[in-house]
Protein backbone atom coordinates (compact mmCIF):
# COMPACT_ATOMS: atom_id res chain seq x y z
CA UNK A 1 0.00 0.00 0.00
CA UNK A 2 1.44 3.36 -0.99
CA UNK A 3 0.91 6.13 1.54
CA UNK A 4 1.58 9.64 0.31
CA UNK A 5 0.89 11.57 3.50
CA UNK A 6 0.72 10.67 7.16
CA UNK A 7 -2.57 10.07 8.95
CA UNK A 8 -4.33 13.08 10.41
CA UNK A 9 -3.87 12.06 14.02
CA UNK A 10 -0.08 11.78 13.66
CA UNK A 11 1.71 14.91 14.86
CA UNK A 12 5.35 15.77 14.36
CA UNK A 13 6.97 17.48 17.33
CA UNK A 14 10.05 19.69 17.43
CA UNK A 15 13.18 18.09 18.86
CA UNK A 16 15.75 20.88 18.31
CA UNK A 17 13.85 23.76 19.86
CA UNK A 18 16.84 24.53 22.10
CA UNK A 19 19.16 25.20 19.16
CA UNK A 20 16.58 27.25 17.29
CA UNK A 21 16.19 29.45 20.37
CA UNK A 22 19.94 29.71 20.88
CA UNK A 23 20.41 30.94 17.31
CA UNK A 24 18.47 34.06 18.25
CA UNK A 25 19.70 34.43 21.83
CA UNK A 26 23.37 34.38 20.83
CA UNK A 27 22.88 37.79 19.20
CA UNK A 28 21.17 39.16 22.31
CA UNK A 29 23.73 38.18 24.92
CA UNK A 30 25.13 41.67 25.39
CA UNK A 31 21.73 43.36 25.76
CA UNK A 32 20.44 44.89 28.95
CA UNK A 33 17.61 43.49 31.01
CA UNK A 34 15.39 40.50 30.36
CA UNK A 35 15.77 40.70 26.61
CA UNK A 36 19.13 38.96 26.86
CA UNK A 37 17.52 35.91 28.48
CA UNK A 38 13.87 35.61 27.46
CA UNK A 39 13.27 34.44 23.91
CA UNK A 40 10.03 36.31 23.33
CA UNK A 41 11.56 39.66 24.22
CA UNK A 42 14.85 38.80 22.54
CA UNK A 43 13.29 38.10 19.15
CA UNK A 44 11.94 41.61 18.93
CA UNK A 45 15.14 43.22 20.20
CA UNK A 46 17.40 41.23 17.91
CA UNK A 47 15.29 42.03 14.87
CA UNK A 48 15.32 45.75 15.71
CA UNK A 49 19.07 45.60 16.32
CA UNK A 50 19.67 44.09 12.88
CA UNK A 51 17.41 46.64 11.19
CA UNK A 52 19.16 49.48 12.97
CA UNK A 53 22.59 48.16 12.04
CA UNK A 54 21.56 47.90 8.38
CA UNK A 55 20.21 51.42 8.28
CA UNK A 56 23.16 52.81 10.23
CA UNK A 57 25.63 51.81 7.51
CA UNK A 58 24.49 54.86 5.54
CA UNK A 59 24.75 57.09 8.60
CA UNK A 60 28.23 55.76 9.42
CA UNK A 61 29.65 57.29 6.26
CA UNK A 62 28.18 60.68 7.13
CA UNK A 63 29.32 60.41 10.74
CA UNK A 64 32.90 59.50 9.86
CA UNK A 65 33.13 62.30 7.31
CA UNK A 66 31.97 64.79 9.93
CA UNK A 67 34.55 63.40 12.36
CA UNK A 68 37.34 63.81 9.82
CA UNK A 69 36.26 67.35 9.05
CA UNK A 70 36.28 68.23 12.75
CA UNK A 71 39.78 66.83 13.15
CA UNK A 72 41.12 68.61 10.05
CA UNK A 73 39.55 71.84 11.23
CA UNK A 74 41.22 71.53 14.63
CA UNK A 75 44.60 70.72 13.09
CA UNK A 76 44.49 73.53 10.55
CA UNK A 77 43.43 76.04 13.21
CA UNK A 78 46.61 75.10 15.08
CA UNK A 79 48.48 76.30 12.02
CA UNK A 80 46.42 79.44 11.65
CA UNK A 81 44.08 78.39 8.81
CA UNK A 82 40.36 77.86 8.82
CA UNK A 83 38.93 74.65 7.36
CA UNK A 84 37.23 76.10 4.23
CA UNK A 85 40.37 78.05 3.34
CA UNK A 86 42.55 74.98 3.88
CA UNK A 87 40.45 72.63 1.78
CA UNK A 88 39.73 75.05 -1.05
CA UNK A 89 43.37 76.05 -1.39
CA UNK A 90 44.52 72.43 -1.33
CA UNK A 91 42.09 71.65 -4.13
CA UNK A 92 43.28 74.64 -6.12
CA UNK A 93 46.87 73.45 -5.76
CA UNK A 94 45.79 70.09 -7.26
CA UNK A 95 46.45 68.18 -4.03
CA UNK A 96 43.70 65.54 -4.26
CA UNK A 97 43.84 64.17 -0.71
CA UNK A 98 40.55 63.10 0.79
CA UNK A 99 39.45 63.98 4.29
CA UNK A 100 40.19 60.54 5.68
CA UNK A 101 43.85 60.74 4.65
CA UNK A 102 44.15 64.35 5.80
CA UNK A 103 42.78 63.44 9.23
CA UNK A 104 45.22 60.51 9.51
CA UNK A 105 48.11 62.76 8.49
CA UNK A 106 47.08 65.34 11.05
CA UNK A 107 47.22 62.69 13.78
CA UNK A 108 50.20 60.57 12.79
CA UNK A 109 52.39 62.85 10.64
CA UNK A 110 52.09 66.35 12.13
CA UNK A 111 55.03 67.75 10.17
CA UNK A 112 53.52 66.69 6.85
CA UNK A 113 50.28 68.33 7.86
CA UNK A 114 52.14 71.50 8.76
CA UNK A 115 53.72 71.60 5.31
CA UNK A 116 50.31 71.05 3.71
CA UNK A 117 48.92 73.93 5.76
CA UNK A 118 51.83 76.10 4.64
CA UNK A 119 51.13 75.15 1.02
CA UNK A 120 47.48 76.08 1.39
CA UNK A 121 48.43 79.38 3.00
CA UNK A 122 50.86 80.22 0.21
CA UNK A 123 48.30 79.40 -2.46
CA UNK A 124 45.81 81.57 -0.60
CA UNK A 125 48.16 84.56 -0.64
CA UNK A 126 48.83 84.05 -4.35
CA UNK A 127 45.09 83.93 -4.94
CA UNK A 128 44.65 87.25 -3.15
CA UNK A 129 47.46 88.83 -5.16
CA UNK A 130 45.99 87.61 -8.42
CA UNK A 131 42.53 88.89 -7.50
CA UNK A 132 43.53 92.23 -6.00
CA UNK A 133 46.84 93.04 -7.69
CA UNK A 134 45.32 93.08 -11.19
CA UNK A 135 47.78 92.46 -13.73
CA UNK A 136 51.41 93.39 -14.07
CA UNK A 137 52.88 90.91 -11.55
CA UNK A 138 53.59 87.43 -12.89
CA UNK A 139 51.39 84.56 -11.81
CA UNK A 140 52.18 82.82 -8.56
CA UNK A 141 54.34 79.70 -8.60
CA UNK A 142 51.96 77.52 -6.67
CA UNK A 143 49.00 78.64 -8.78
CA UNK A 144 50.31 76.85 -11.84
CA UNK A 145 48.19 73.95 -12.95
CA UNK A 146 49.69 70.69 -14.21
CA UNK A 147 47.73 69.09 -17.07
CA UNK A 148 47.94 65.31 -17.23
CA UNK A 149 47.08 64.04 -20.70
Amino acid at each position, binding site marked *: MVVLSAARWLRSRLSDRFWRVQEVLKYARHFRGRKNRCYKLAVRSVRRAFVKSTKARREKKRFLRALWITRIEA*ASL*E*HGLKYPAFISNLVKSQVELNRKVLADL*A*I*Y*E*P*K*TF*KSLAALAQRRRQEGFLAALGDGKEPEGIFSRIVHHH
Partner: protein
Amino acid sequence: RYVRQLQRLQLLFSPTAADARGARQFVEEEAQDFARQHPDVVLYVSPHSGPGPAPVLRAEYLNGTVRDELIASKTSEEIVQLATKLANQSGLDIVRIRKPFHTDNPSVQGQWHPLTNKPSILTVQGPRLQPQ
Protein backbone atom coordinates in the same frame (compact mmCIF):
# COMPACT_ATOMS: atom_id res chain seq x y z
CA ARG B 1 55.15 28.99 -3.89
CA TYR B 2 51.60 28.24 -2.81
CA VAL B 3 51.29 26.07 0.32
CA ARG B 4 47.83 24.60 0.76
CA GLN B 5 46.58 25.35 4.25
CA LEU B 6 44.37 22.28 4.46
CA GLN B 7 46.25 19.44 6.10
CA ARG B 8 43.81 16.55 6.13
CA LEU B 9 40.19 15.74 5.41
CA GLN B 10 38.55 13.06 7.50
CA LEU B 11 35.35 11.51 6.21
CA LEU B 12 33.53 10.03 9.22
CA PHE B 13 30.38 8.18 8.29
CA SER B 14 28.53 4.96 8.94
CA PRO B 15 28.25 2.50 6.03
CA THR B 16 24.69 1.54 6.92
CA ALA B 17 23.09 4.88 7.82
CA ALA B 18 20.58 6.25 5.34
CA ASP B 19 21.77 9.86 5.43
CA ALA B 20 25.35 8.80 4.62
CA ARG B 21 24.36 7.74 1.11
CA GLY B 22 26.00 10.75 -0.47
CA ALA B 23 29.15 10.13 1.55
CA ARG B 24 29.27 6.53 0.35
CA GLN B 25 28.77 7.59 -3.26
CA PHE B 26 31.49 10.19 -2.86
CA VAL B 27 33.88 7.54 -1.52
CA GLU B 28 33.08 5.14 -4.34
CA GLU B 29 33.15 7.55 -7.25
CA GLU B 30 34.84 10.86 -6.60
CA ALA B 31 37.21 10.43 -3.67
CA GLN B 32 40.04 9.16 -5.87
CA ASP B 33 39.71 12.00 -8.37
CA PHE B 34 39.57 14.52 -5.54
CA ALA B 35 42.68 13.03 -3.95
CA ARG B 36 44.52 13.15 -7.28
CA GLN B 37 43.55 16.77 -7.92
CA HIS B 38 44.68 17.81 -4.43
CA PRO B 39 47.94 15.93 -3.86
CA ASP B 40 48.93 17.90 -0.76
CA VAL B 41 45.73 17.07 1.16
CA VAL B 42 45.52 13.74 2.95
CA LEU B 43 42.09 12.15 2.68
CA TYR B 44 41.12 9.71 5.44
CA VAL B 45 37.97 7.61 5.08
CA SER B 46 36.90 6.18 8.43
CA PRO B 47 33.59 4.32 8.39
CA HIS B 48 32.28 3.46 11.88
CA SER B 49 29.86 0.56 11.93
CA GLY B 50 26.47 0.65 13.62
CA PRO B 51 24.32 3.64 14.49
CA GLY B 52 26.64 6.55 15.37
CA PRO B 53 26.82 10.31 15.06
CA ALA B 54 25.82 12.08 11.87
CA PRO B 55 28.19 11.82 8.88
CA VAL B 56 30.74 14.59 9.08
CA LEU B 57 33.58 15.94 6.94
CA ARG B 58 36.34 17.08 9.26
CA ALA B 59 38.95 19.51 7.89
CA GLU B 60 42.17 20.18 9.80
CA TYR B 61 44.36 23.11 8.87
CA LEU B 62 48.01 23.96 9.35
CA ASN B 63 47.29 26.50 12.07
CA GLY B 64 45.39 23.87 14.10
CA THR B 65 41.75 24.81 13.45
CA VAL B 66 39.43 21.86 13.00
CA ARG B 67 36.27 22.49 11.01
CA ASP B 68 33.41 19.96 10.93
CA GLU B 69 30.85 20.09 8.13
CA LEU B 70 27.74 17.95 8.20
CA ILE B 71 27.27 15.89 5.03
CA ALA B 72 24.04 14.15 6.09
CA SER B 73 21.59 13.88 3.19
CA LYS B 74 23.89 15.61 0.73
CA THR B 75 24.52 14.42 -2.80
CA SER B 76 27.95 13.40 -4.00
CA GLU B 77 28.38 16.57 -6.07
CA GLU B 78 27.56 18.76 -3.09
CA ILE B 79 30.16 16.93 -1.02
CA VAL B 80 32.74 17.49 -3.77
CA GLN B 81 31.93 21.20 -3.84
CA LEU B 82 32.15 21.37 -0.05
CA ALA B 83 35.50 19.59 -0.05
CA THR B 84 36.96 21.93 -2.69
CA LYS B 85 35.68 24.93 -0.72
CA LEU B 86 37.41 23.64 2.43
CA ALA B 87 40.56 22.90 0.46
CA ASN B 88 40.75 26.49 -0.80
CA GLN B 89 40.23 28.01 2.65
CA SER B 90 42.87 28.88 5.18
CA GLY B 91 42.38 27.90 8.80
CA LEU B 92 41.71 31.45 10.03
CA ASP B 93 38.40 31.75 11.88
CA ILE B 94 35.60 33.23 9.87
CA VAL B 95 34.92 36.47 11.70
CA ARG B 96 34.14 39.92 10.38
CA ILE B 97 37.45 41.72 9.82
CA ARG B 98 37.05 45.16 11.29
CA LYS B 99 39.70 46.86 9.15
CA PRO B 100 41.36 45.56 5.99
CA PHE B 101 44.67 47.12 7.07
CA HIS B 102 46.96 46.95 10.08
CA THR B 103 50.28 48.60 10.98
CA ASP B 104 52.60 48.11 13.89
CA ASN B 105 54.19 51.52 13.27
CA PRO B 106 51.38 53.91 12.35
CA SER B 107 53.42 57.05 12.96
CA VAL B 108 56.74 57.87 11.29
CA GLN B 109 57.08 61.51 12.38
CA GLY B 110 55.80 60.97 15.90
CA GLN B 111 52.13 60.91 16.86
CA TRP B 112 50.45 64.25 17.54
CA HIS B 113 50.18 65.27 21.18
CA PRO B 114 48.90 68.60 22.47
CA LEU B 115 52.41 70.03 22.68
CA THR B 116 53.57 69.25 19.12
CA ASN B 117 52.66 72.60 17.60
CA LYS B 118 53.30 74.75 20.64
CA PRO B 119 56.51 76.77 21.12
CA SER B 120 59.27 74.64 22.57
CA ILE B 121 59.60 76.86 25.66
CA LEU B 122 56.68 74.92 27.13
CA THR B 123 58.48 71.58 26.87
CA VAL B 124 62.14 72.33 27.32
CA GLN B 125 63.35 72.29 30.89
CA GLY B 126 66.78 73.48 31.73
CA PRO B 127 68.84 75.77 33.87
CA ARG B 128 68.76 78.46 31.16
CA LEU B 129 65.04 79.06 31.64
CA GLN B 130 65.29 80.35 35.19
CA PRO B 131 64.56 84.05 35.51
CA GLN B 132 67.63 86.20 35.97
